[in-house]
């Protein structure tokens, strides 16, 4: 068995809606090891995004334990959490979330800027990434000038540039046609081969099949 990447220990998230509490995530127990490719499935509203956001430390569990690479995330300060996810986690979103005002090149470069990486090193890393995704010719275009599939490629390239251990993908193909969708999933599979751990949320059975493990969510509970 490989190293343990993260573990959730009866982790819950509740929110107060007016007077009553609602549990968005209910006592989740989950261990993820390095090299896994997990597909989160469940109907709309079942809590997939919430779970991904909490794992990605954009959001917090309100109860239970969360350990990432042996560090207790649940008791960490905001600053340390952000150091952790900056270093180890890459995000891919359904709506791509590229920055409209930046070119393809600059979008991919941005995470490196926040990691204070030297300019020459940055250039090399971005050039590699552009090469690998076959988008060198598009590097000076703005997101609006690309198709959805191409935008998601850029999104993935950006998530990968920081050499994360874990990629969290929230319905990465939700806005794409099936051909584009297959290409993206192939890419994920290949990345996973190379050792990147991936957790993706999806509706589609065929996408879920790319994963090595499927977890089903319903009303915030693992079923």
């Amino acid at each position, binding site marked *: 068995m490989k190293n343990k990447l993260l573990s959730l220990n009866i982790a819950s998230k509740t929110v107060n809606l007016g007077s009553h509490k609602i549990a968005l995530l209910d006592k989740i127990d989950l261990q993820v090891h390095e090299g896994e490719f997990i597909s989160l499935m469940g109907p709309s509203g079942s809590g997939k995004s919430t779970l991904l*956001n909490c794992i*990605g430390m*954009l*959001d917090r569990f309100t109860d239970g334990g969360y350990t990432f690479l042996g560090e207790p995330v649940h008791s960490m300060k905001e*600053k340390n959490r*952000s150091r952790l*996810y*900056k270093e180890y986690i890459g*995000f891919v*979103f359904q709506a791509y*979330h*590229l*920055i*409209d*005002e*930046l070119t393809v090149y*600059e979008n991919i*470069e*941005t*995470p490196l*800027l*926040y*990691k*204070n990486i030297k300019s020459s090193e940055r250039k090399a890393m971005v050039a590699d990434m552009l090469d690998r995704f076959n988008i060198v010719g598009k590097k000076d275009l703005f997101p609006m000038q690309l198709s959805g599939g191409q935008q998601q490629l850029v999104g993935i390239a*950006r998530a990968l540039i*920081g050499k994360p251990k874990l990629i969290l993908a929230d319905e990465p193909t939700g806005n794409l046609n099936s051909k584009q969708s297959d290409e993206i999933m192939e890419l994920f599979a290949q990345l996973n081969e190379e050792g990147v751990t991936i957790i993706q949320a999806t509706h589609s059975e065929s996408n879920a099949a790319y994963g090595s493990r499927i977890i089903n969510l319903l009303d915030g509970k693992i079923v």
Partner: protein
Amino acid sequence: MFKNYFKIALRNLWKNRTFTTLNVVGLTAAFGVAILLAMYTVFQLSFDRFHEHGDEIYQVYTEDSGLNGIEANISKSEPFAAALKDEVAGVEKITRYISTGVLLSQDDKQFDMSTAYVDPDFFEIFSFPIIKGDTKNPITSESSVVMTELAAKRIFGDEEPIGQTVSILRDEQQVPFTVTAIVKDFPNTSSMDFDIVLNFKSQNEHAYARTIGRWDMENHEVYMQLAEAVQQEQFEKNTTDFTQLHYKNVIDNAKRDGFQPNPEGLYRQLKLLPLADVRFANFNQGAVTVSRTMPYLVLGISILILFIACVNFINMSIAKSAQRLREIGMRKTLGANKKQLFFQFWGESILVFLISIGLGILLAVFLLPYFQTIFKTQASLATLLNPSLLLVLILSVLLITLIAGGYPALLMSRLGTLQSLKGKLDVHGKNHLRNSLMVLQFGIAILLISGTLVLWDQVEFMRTKDLGFNKDQVIAFPLNGQLNDQQAIELLRNKLQDKPNILSVTASNTILGLGKDGSRSTSVLGFEHQGRGVDTHMVVVDADYIETLDLNIIKGRAFRKNLASDSLSVIINEAMAKQLNEDDILASQIDLDDAVYSVVGVIKDFNFQELDQTIAPMTLFALPNWNLRNVYVKVSSQNLEQAYTDVKAAWNSIEPNAEFQGSFLNENIDRTLRHERTMITMIGSGSILAIILSCIGLFAMSLLIVAQRKKEIGVRKIVGASVSAITILLTKDFLKLIVIAFLIASPIAWWAMSKWLQNYVYRIELNIWMFLGAGGIAVVIAMLTIAVKTIKAATSNPVDSLRTE
């Protein structure tokens, strides 16, 4: 990183070019104007600050108990300065000072020279450095003259001035003077303004010789340098014995007349006025008041205008931040922390501010000549180029960008990652801030507009008020030539006699209003009447004075045609008659030292002084061979321009070398309103700018609101709302803000303006319409501003607006 920020900043500014332009235009205008106004303030406040010993220099004045409480007086007598230095400890140096105009000739050229008559200490007290000639004792000799570089240049051109002889007209004789020294041209922030300096003793008989040893003839000012070890208050206290000794009769008279002494029980108190305060001191109304309101008011206006422009910037930045939520969220997930986001957004603001300040400086440079002309000021941008001042300016600019740019940046950097990614922004609280800021903006605009309206009303009132004399048909000018006054008047009468458009000619020692030459004098006479002290303005006139000015005789008669036969007669005004308090005024006499004069007539009160003063007691004398510097010519109302030309031609033929400085009395009156007019122009342009800037902000807000509510508008139209209903829906929120602004600003404006009007004895009544007018103007302009966008939105096809969603 920086490059990335810079790029994204430029791209964002370009993408939102409408808003960028609105912001840059507004901020540029505000910075440009603020720079000019700050410059003006600094210039005004730096007056007379260039003297090395400035902090120790004082003007000496007295505070006397009078009929109407404390009266301040800066005129001193011939023996005063020397005696003060001798008898009271602490006078380091002292000088008498009188400023006047003289006629100087060199070869066959003549020059009008403004002249300061001073004592030798003058050059040691004040920093008017001598750059050439006798630096030690330049005016110790009574035949020495010191001149400024400029004056020397004017007279001698490139010739060496030192040692040259010029002649100066004094008591109708050309008196030779030798140029002994040249002083450096002084900064234009000097209140003392002279071409040449002469020894105090070089004055004419009337001004000097006649007054030697006399404590009762006060005709000049005194400045002194206080010894460093002595405090101002202490010195003032120490003068008590001096005052008791030399002004015993003044004090006795005050006691006899039952005046109230000051809190220390003194009837006359010597006081010192710091040099820096002299320019801002008012001696006209009771005790001396030093007021720097005007320069600070100007500074205040510039701050208000900057504030308005910054509010626009803040409001637009916050409103636009909704469009950048996704970027903020994304950057956070990519690892940006709050600090980095703050600096990114703040940096963008700084960029806008830097561009605006740059353009603002250019604007200020471009507007400077117009500004100097309109406000008759020599202030220049060099005024601001002083290291400590520049530091203050740079710090204030930093502070402004920190607040205006930093606040929205702070809001944005604090947003939660997930909320911003989802594009949701809790906008409720922020609208409060926006609304309050807009209320403030319009409040300021309304305040300034109503201020302008009231000021303008008051000035119009003063300009058009019936002052009790004929100001429309009378031309006045100074006798500034070589002939003596009586000769000149005689010649002028003869010249103008047979011209049908000239009705009458007269002269007097005082001028009404302010003439073209800008000089003015008053003489006040005090004497004893029925065991009481009586003060009166003394006006010495030539024949036909009453007729020329159309003054109304209410009792008795005017002076006779044969003026010599009236040399012991006086005519008084109603205020004087009241003061004399006689049963049969025409049978009364006044007893001056030299002679007894009979009252032969009483004229109706007229405003011979400005309208901030009540009509004082005044007495007309018909003394022979008196200095009658000002000629008054009444012309027929048919062709005023022709008449002016005729009078000018007559004067030019009599005194070919003298400039004709004639103007109609109504222009003279207008000249006295210069201060008020400057204020109107300042506040007026401030209010125009304020309303324009506020409307730029309003326009931007209406663009954003219409964009935000596009879908709502579409739905409402489909449901059946009319164009007017939708226009009202979109406008009423803004209208509400302006009404609130009006309700807040009007009472403040009312209070401020009624306070200002207190300065004038003759003043308009404030009425609600001036303020409603200001509010109305603001509402109308604001509505026009938003009408374009809202009506367009209201009339657009609803299907379009829904489709774009």
